[in-house]
C-alpha cells in the first residue's frame, strides 16, 4: 500500500473556526490532491499540487486553500469553516499527472463535521 497518512481521521468543529487537514506521503510522489466526498456527488477535486509550492484549483476550490512546503506534506485549510464543508476529505498522490501513472493512491480519509 502507498504510504499516505491523513490527520486527523475525524474532527468536529464549529462554524467560523479555522481547520487544517494534513496529508503526509512517504512515496516521494510529485503530485498530491485533495478531494471531498459527499453523498450523490462522488469525489470532487478541491485543489492539487504538482510540486513544492506549486498548486492549482480543482472544481470545488471556493472556501479552501492549500500549501505544500515539502514534497511529503500537503495541507488543506478551511479559513472559516461552514456547515456546507461537512464532508469526508481524501488525499491522493500520483507519480505524475499522466494516465499510465494514474491511478492515484488514496489516503484513508478524514471525516469533518462542522456544527
Amino acid at each position, binding site marked *: 500500500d502507498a504510504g499516505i497518512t491523513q490527520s486527523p481521521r475525524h474532527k468536529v468543529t464549529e462554524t467560523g473556526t479555522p481547520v487544517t487537514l494534513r496529508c503526509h506521503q512517504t512515496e516521494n510522489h510529485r503530485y498530491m490532491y485533495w478531494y471531498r466526498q459527499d453523498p*450523490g*456527488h*462522488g*469525489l*470532487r*477535486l478541491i485543489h*492539487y499540487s504538482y510540486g513544492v509550492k506549486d498548486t492549482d484549483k*480543482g472544481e470545488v476550490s471556493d472556501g479552501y486553500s492549500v500549501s505544500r512546503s515539502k514534497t511529503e506534506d500537503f495541507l488543506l485549510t478551511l479559513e472559516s469553516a461552514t456547515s456546507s464543508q461537512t464532508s*469526508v476529505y*481524501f488525499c*491522493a498522490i500520483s507519480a505524475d*499527472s*499522466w*494516465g*499510465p501513472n*494514474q*491511478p*492515484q*493512491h*488514496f489516503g*484513508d*480519509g478524514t471525516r469533518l463535521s462542522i456544527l
Partner: protein
Amino acid sequence: AQTVTQSQPEMSVQEAETVTLSCTYDTSESNYYLFWYKQPPSRQMILVIRQEAYKQQNATENRFSVNFQKAAKSFSLKISDSQLGDTAMYFCALFSGGSNYKLTFGKGTLLTVNP
C-alpha cells in the same frame, strides 16, 4: 468538460453470481484512461481495474473485467463469482489530457452481495 455517469445508484447480487455495473462517459480527448475504484465500508479507495482508451482489448483482473465500448463511450464492470467482500461503493473515473489533467468520478454504485 468531461463527464462520467453511473446510472445505477444501488445494485444487489447473490453470492457466487455475476453482476455488471454500468458507466458512460464523455470527453473530447482522443487519448484517455478509465478506472474503476472500489470503496468498502472501511472507506479506503482501492483501484480495481483500468483501461487505456487506445487499447481495444478489454482489461481483466481476476474476477473483474470490463466491457469497453469506445464508440458508445461505455465502460461497464463485470464481477464474476461475487463474494461478500465485494460489497462496496464502486466508482467509475475518467482521466484525459489536454488542459484537464484530473480524474473525474461518477457518483458511484453501491453494490451489496447477499449470502
